[in-house]
Every structure is written in structure tokens, then in C-alpha cells.
């Protein structure tokens, strides 16, 4: 196939991020400078965000059989870029100013890994081909192993990295086996061709195995066991990346696969997904009740949230796609906010992140604005009106009622009621005053730092979207998949 200029324009976001990664790498090879690496990465990501505008004009277009650039992929590219940008800002704050009062090892490579992982995410959201899916997924996951274990001198971080690597590789093996079966049966790797003629048992098995692999990455029940340990062990900004950019990428590709491939149109898959969704909602919420560690709590709550997202996927009517986009946007904002607060409270890097719930007792008395941000995030996660989370939840409930998924609706109501309990617990902890409190301060003047400003923006956006969601809803109505 001939590549023309318009193809390159359509690929511009991917190319810019890739180029930025190379620039950061060369920069590190030439001279280590924390500030410089940060600036290059930020500028590169902002350029990539800008380059989405020309790419929109070129879309929809298929660039090589592997990639399909359309409004859908560009929307999720933007989401990934924004969350990577936010994670970079958090990382910069987290590393601290000097080696004595901050991260003791090399700092610059974390930016490089994050950029590489984001590149993988962009490939993932644009792919329409099983080979592209695998390349994207591995390009996203392999840097994540390094990122999770970045503080390798810390036992928890190292343990989390190894756990994540082993389980992730297992997931990939399932995925590959599934792909092999699909290829063997249908002779094609293109999403829309798989299962076009007849859907046989081998195709079903292939799809099922692929689902297992993807469910590993999305940490859906019963493939969720790695999640809490990895979230807890990973450095806080990496946790933010893991919860946002990487999940968005995998979910987007799952949506595209299920919507495009005729092999997934059968009823059994919906039954399977329904079971997974109900299990994720209930198990995620119930286990979150028992946590005393904020990172672990967030990890279990993310399991539940992806259960909610599956509801929209199962409904898969016209509104379902919109609901997924809205919910993912709200979820990304909220997770960034919550992990951002954890990061800033743990800033600068110390032996242990401030992730135990008692670190947050009475935070209101020390960091009122940070507390306000976390409060908004908890309310948004719980889906209380005035926050973006409510709009997302409302959208999913509307989709579910429209598709008459009563069992899932029941699970959602139950899950939300349980969820409120632990979100409120976190929220009230922030306001409790205790004599002789454990002191754990974010550096003074955090509001002036980039991370603080970013958090305020995220909180403001969460509230604005909760109060006036119409612009976002207009936007997501145009993010349909090409060729559907």
C-alpha cells in the first residue's frame, strides 16, 4: 500500500509521541538532566495533542492494514495523551528536587518509559488487526514492568513488578493462543473478517481466550488478583498511569474488537460478559470495604468501575458507545485526581508512599485544598450529583435500562450502595481531627507547583462536567467507530 501525506497526517499523534521518546532517549545519552527530560516530554506530548486537530481532518483513514485512524481512535488518543501528561507532571513533583530529598536513583528513564507506554496505548486504540493489537499491547505493557519496579531498591515495588510481569506474560500467552486459533480457523487477522463466514467452536474458543488475556489487563474478576499488590507497590504516579492510560487503551481495543468482529455477535459472549461484569462489580466493591490502604482501595474500586463499563459494552446499542466514552472520561479524570492527591501527599519520594488511610487523618487541617480535591474525587467515584462521575453513571444506567439488562442494573445499584460506604469512609477520614496526629505533609506551596495546578484543573473539570456535561456529550456523539 502506498503511504501518502494524508496518511502521515493521520498518524501524526503517534509519530510525535514516538519522536519525543527518541528525543528523550538521546537527551539522556548525551547528558542526564531531570529538568530537560521533563521539558522535552511535556512539549512533545502537547505537540502530539495539537497534532490531533490536523489528524481529525484526515480521518477516517486506514493506514496500513494494521491501523485505522478514525474519530474513535483520536478521542481515545487524546484521553491517553492527557492522562500521560498529567502523570508526567505528577512524576516531576514526586521525584523531588535533589537526590538527598527525593528519588535517589536515576530519574530520567521514567519519562522515557512512560512515553513508550503511551505510544503503545495509541497503537492499541487505533488498531483493527490482531497483530496491531499484540504489538500495541506489548509496547504498552513492557515499559510498565520497568515503571512499576522503578523504585527497585524498595521491596514492595520490586515484588509488584515481578508479579505484574509474570501475570501479564501469562495473559499475553492466552491472548496469543486465542489469536492463533482465530487465525487457524479464519485465515485472517483483521477484526472485521474474523468469524465472517461461519462461527465455529474454534472461533468461539479463540475469542474466549483473547477475552481472558484482555480481562487480565483490565483486571476484571476473576483475573484481578494482581491488581491490589501492583497498585500498592508501584510508585504513586506510575499507579496513576496504570489506572488511567493503560486501562483506556485496553478497553478501547476491546470495544473495537467486539463491535467489529462478527464472531462476537452471538449470545453466549454477552452471557459471559454479564457474569464477568456482575462478579467484578460485587467482588470489587466488597473487597474494597476491607481495605485500609488508599491505593489498594482505589485498585478494588477500579475493578468495580470496569464492571460498570462492561454494562455499557454489553448493551452495545447506539447509546452504549457514548456511555463508554463519557464514563471513561469521567473515570480518567477522577482516577488522576485521586492518585494525584496520593502522589502529592507522598511528595517528595520517601521509602514509603503515604498510602495508608491513617496518613490522611485530618488532612483537612494541613492541606485544605488537597482535601477538597480528594473529596470531590471520592464523590465522583461514588457517582454523586454535581460531579462527572454522576453523569457517567447516569449514562450507563440509561443504557442499561434501554437495553433491559435488569440483572446488571440490580448489581449496579447494589454495588453503588456498597461503594458509597468506603468512599465516605475515606472522605470522613480527611476531616477527622486527632491529637498527636501522624504528620505527613505535602511540601508547602504545592498549589504553585505544576502538579498542584494540574490537580486543581482536574477537580474543576470534574465539577464543570458534572454541572454542564453538554459539550462532552456533543463531542462523544461524534466518536463512533469507522466502518460500523
Amino acid at each position, binding site marked *: 500500500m502506498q503511504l501518502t501525506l494524508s496518511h502521515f497526517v493521520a498518524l501524526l499523534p503517534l509519530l510525535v509521541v514516538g519522536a519525543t521518546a527518541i528525543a528523550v532517549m538521546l537527551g539522556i545519552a548525551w547528558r542526564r538532566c531531570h529538568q530537560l527530560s521533563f521539558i522535552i516530554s511535556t512539549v512533545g506530548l502537547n505537540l502530539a495533542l495539537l497534532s490531533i486537530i490536523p489528524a481529525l481532518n484526515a480521518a477516517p483513514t486506514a493506514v496500513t492494514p494494521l491501523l485505522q485512524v478514525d474519530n474513535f481512535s483520536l478521542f481515545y488518543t487524546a484521553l491517553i495523551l492527557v492522562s500521560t501528561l498529567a502523570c508526567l507532571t505528577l512524576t516531576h513533583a514526586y521525584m523531588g528536587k535533589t537526590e538527598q530529598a527525593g528519588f535517589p536513583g536515576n530519574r530520567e528513564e521514567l519519562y522515557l518509559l512512560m512515553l513508550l507506554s503511551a505510544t503503545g496505548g495509541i497503537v492499541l486504540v487505533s488498531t483493527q488487526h490482531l497483530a496491531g493489537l499484540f504489538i500495541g499491547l506489548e509496547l504498552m505493557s513492557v515499559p510498565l514492568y520497568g515503571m512499576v519496579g522503578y523504585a527497585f531498591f524498595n521491596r514492595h515495588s520490586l515484588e509488584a513488578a515481578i508479579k505484574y510481569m509474570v501475570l501479564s506474560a501469562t495473559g499475553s500467552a492466552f491472548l496469543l493462543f486465542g489469536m492463533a486459533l482465530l487465525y487457524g480457523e479464519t485465515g485472517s487477522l483483521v477484526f472485521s473478517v474474523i468469524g465472517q463466514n461461519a462461527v465455529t467452536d474454534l472461533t468461539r474458543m479463540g475469542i474466549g481466550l483473547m477475552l481472558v488475556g484482555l480481562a487480565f489487563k483490565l483486571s476484571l474478576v476473576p483475573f484481578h488478583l494482581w491488581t491490589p499488590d501492583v497498585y500498592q507497590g508501584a510508585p504513586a504516579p506510575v499507579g496513576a498511569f496504570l489506572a488511567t492510560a493503560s486501562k483506556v487503551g485496553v478497553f478501547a481495543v476491546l470495544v473495537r474488537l467486539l463491535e467489529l468482529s462478527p464472531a462476537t455477535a452471538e449470545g453466549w459472549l454477552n452471557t459471559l460478559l454479564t457474569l464477568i461484569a456482575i462478579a467484578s462489580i460485587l467482588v470489587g466493591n466488597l473487597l474494597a470495604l476491607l481495605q485500609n490502604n488508599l491505593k489498594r482501595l482505589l485498585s478494588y474500586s477500579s475493578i468495580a468501575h470496569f464492571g460498570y463499563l462492561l454494562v455499557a459494552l454489553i448493551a452495545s446499542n447506539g447509546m452504549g458507545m457514548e456511555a463508554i466514552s463519557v464514563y471513561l472520561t469521567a473515570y480518567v479524570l477522577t482516577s488522576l485526581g485521586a492518585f494525584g492527591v496520593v502522589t502529592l501527599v507522598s511528595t517528595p519520594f520517601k521509602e514509603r508512599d503515604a498510602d495508608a488511610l491513617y496518613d490522611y487523618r485530618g488532612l483537612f487541617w494541613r492541606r485544605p485544598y488537597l482535601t477538597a480535591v480528594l473529596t470531590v474525587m471520592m*464523590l465522583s467515584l461514588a457517582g*454523586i*450529583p*454535581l460531579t462527572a462521575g*454522576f453523569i457517567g453513571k*447516569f449514562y450507563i*444506567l*440509561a443504557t442499561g*435500562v*434501554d437495553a433491559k439488562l435488569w440483572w446488571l*442494573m440490580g448489581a*449496579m*445499584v*447494589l454495588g*453503588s*450502595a456498597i461503594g*458509597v*460506604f468506603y468512599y*465516605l*469512609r475515606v472522605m*470522613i477520614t480527611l*476531616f477527622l481531627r486527632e491529637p498527636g496526629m501522624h504528620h505527613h505533609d505535602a511540601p508547602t506551596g504545592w498549589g504553585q507547583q505544576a502538579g498542584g495546578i494540574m490537580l486543581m484543573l482536574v477537580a474543576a473539570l470534574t465539577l464543570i462536567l458534572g454541572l*454542564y*456535561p*453538554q459539550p462532552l*456529550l*456533543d463531542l462523544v*456523539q461524534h466518536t463512533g467507530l469507522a466502518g460500523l
Partner: protein
Amino acid sequence: MILPWLILIPFVGGLLCWFTERFDKNLPRWIALISVSLLLLLSLWLWATGNYQLAPTPSTGIAWTLEFKQPWIERFGISVHLALDGLSMLMIVLTGLLGVLSVFCSWKEIQHRVGFFHLNLLWILGGVVGVFLAIDLFLFFFFWEMMLVPMYFLIALWGHSGSAGNSRISAATKFFIFTQASGLIMLLSILGLVFVNYQATGVLTFDYATLLKAKLPEGVDYVLMLGFFVAFAVKMPVVPVHSWLPDAHTQAPTAGSVDLAGILLKTAAYGLMRFAIPLFPEASAEFAPIAMTLALIGVFYGAFVAFAQTDMKRLIAYSSVSHMGFVLIGIYSGNIQALQGAVVLMVAHGLSASALFILSGQLYERLHTRDMREMGGLWARLPWLPAISLFFAAASLGLPGTGNFVGEFLVLMGTFATAPWVIVIGTFGLVVGSVYSLIMIHRAYFGPARSEEPLPGLNCRELSMVLLLAVLLILLGVYPQPVLDASAATMNGVQQWLGIALNQLVR
């Protein structure tokens, strides 16, 4: 344009309270007082000037005294649609009045985080006013859920620490989860209604007037009505789902209890009359016997359990369960007198229960206990307060000359025409009511005194609050006509909806 201001004033006032806390501790109190007074004055002005003959009825169509509409989320046909009729006006006046009182009664009680406290207090009021005005179902749900958060903070942060295992935080959480979960069930019902209408007409809208015309299949309307009823039953509270109420009341600060008993419980009754019955008249008519049975159980259960309490606030809380049972009977009677009585009873209960909570708060400030076993013989030690308490206890048991009597009498008389047996049984509830009311007075104020030391009397602020409530309650008892006139048109509509359906059911 005045309607959005009724909602905005408390919200903006609340934010101002929060921001001005750093300058002066008393500034938030004054700002809060000014905001709620403004709300009260505006609503009284509306009462004086509005034409309350206009209300939605099935025969004359949808009419409102005042209306405001602004598109909001066009994707779902959601708009900021506010409207006022006699019923909502009465409820907003009550909200404004009790708002002023709750600012006054926390003047001395709340001493830390004053700004944040008033932020929460005003946001509750703003949310409640929103509930009373919203006639877009999404907007209604929005306010319904939103007012939970400030109430949660109010109980969890400024509440009284209770006994072990029954802390203010667990009470607040219980309140939140009960209302949130039931609210979500209501949201599912709202969505169900909207999509049934969408599939029939092709119009996606949450507008009240349009949905009133929706044709619902047999059976579906019953399920949807149940979804609404569950949410309102939890808030009201109806007996099997009432257990959050005594905990929340007991642990809440005085202002929180006043708002809870005075206004928040009324949102449920309002919701039944505004939404559940007009939207699903046939299903409501079918459900009426069950609702009345539940109400009767509530009347007696509330009264008996109230009798057994030793904690004064818990006793008053359970008495609310009993009183709201009468309101529920009135609502489902389908008789105009009973419906009017339910409105009067709502207002009267708002006044009398608030007064009792304020009094028990004042008592707590002096004795630092709410346990009636620790009291006794207070009549001699304390001027004014015991006598006023006696008055409100008498009002609460339905003494003629108070608003409660008018309300209960109208409910009983009106319902007798349609459901005589319910009334025959329900009347005994009044007897039990007088028993727990008087036993509260007896335990707290009579009997042997614990000590002879006199307690500090009521100051001007405390005295004027309760005297104002007493005067209003007598006025309502002697001359209830203004209230009855204001709500007449709205109640006429509710009566027509339910009455027609009930008649069809009999045939």
C-alpha cells in the same frame, strides 16, 4: 426569574460563609442568617402575590403559578425546569422558616469550623428548595441526591458522639446509604418511564408535563411506581425502612435534626403527591391499601417504640415515624379533605417536631445529656422551658387549638369516607400518641429532682425561637384557612388523579 434565585441564594450564601470564615468567626453566621432570611422573605412575598388557583390537574391540564425553563442537557431532553404552585410554595416557606431557626439554634452550639458548617446547612436548604421546585425528573433526582452530601457532613462532623458502636459517623453513613440506594432505584424507575415514553413517542424527555401523558403498559406502571415509592418510603420513613432515622436524628446537631424532621421528611411526602401519584394513578390506586397498611403499622410501631425510649431525641424521632404515618394515610386516601389535612399536618409536624428538637438541644446545652433517666424534676429548676415543652408535647399529641389537631382531624374525617376501617384503627394511634408525649414530659420535668441547683434560664434568642413556633402552631390551629387555600388547587389535582383511578378500581 425568581425561581432560580430561590435555589441560588442558599448555594451562593453557603460559599460566602466558607470563604469568610478566615476573617471572622461570626461573619458566616450573619451571612447565613441574611441568606435564609432572604429566602424566607422571598417565599412569603410569593405567597402574598401569587395566584395559587393554578396547579396541575388532569381536568384542566398543567398550569403553574410561576415557571422557569432553560435547556440543560439536550442529548437527553433534560432542562432546568422549575415551577411553583401552592404546595411547593408552602413547603418553601416552611424551609425558609426552619432555615432561619436552624441558623439561630446553632449560634452557640457550633463553635468550630463555623464557615464549613453553614456551607453545609445552606446547601441542604438549597437542595431541598430545588427538590420542591424541580419538575424535570432528572433535575429532581439531581437535587434529591445532592442534598445528602451536606447532610452527611453535618451529622458526621458536628454530630454528638453516641455510645460505643453507634457513633455519629456510622449514623451518617447509614443515612447516606439508605437514601442513596433507594434513590438509585428511583433513578431506574425514572429511566424506565422515560424510555417507555421514548419507545412510544420517539421523544426523549424528562419533562413532567410530557411524562404525565405517557401511556404505560399494564404491570409496567406498577413496577415503576414501586421504584418511586421505595425512595420516598425510605425518606418518609415508612416502617420497614425507617431504621436510619432514629440514629441520624439522635447523633445530628440540633440544626441537623431540625432540618431532617422539619424539611427532609417532607420532601418524601411532597414527592408522593407531586410525582408518584400523578405519574402512576392506576398503579397508586391499586397500591393504596398496601400503603395504608404500612402507614398504620408505622403509626403504631412508631408510637410504641417512642414510648420505650430513654433518649429524648430518639423519642421525638420515633414520634415522627408515627406522625408521618398519618400523612401517608391522608395521601393515599384519594379524598380532598384528607389530602388537605396531610398538607396541614406536614406543616404542623414541621413546626412542632422542630420545636421539640430545639428544646431538647437547649436542654442538652444545660445538662449535657439527653437521657431522660438523668433528668426528672426539672420543672422547679428551670423557668420557661418545661412549660413550653409541655405545650409542644400537647401539640404533638394533637390537642385542639394546634395545627396538628386540624391536620389529624381532616385526615381522619376525610379518609373515613373511603377507608373506614383504617380510620377506626388509626384513631387509636392518637391515644398511644398522647401516652408517649406525656410520658416524655413526666420523665423529664416531673418526679424527684436530681439536684436542687437551678439551671440557667433561656436567653432572648432561645426564647423567641420557640415562642415564635408556638404562636405559628396556634395560628395554624385556629385559622388554617390561608394554608388550605394555598394548597387547595394542587390537592384538587392529586385528588382527581387518584380519585378517578380508585373509582375505576371499585367498578
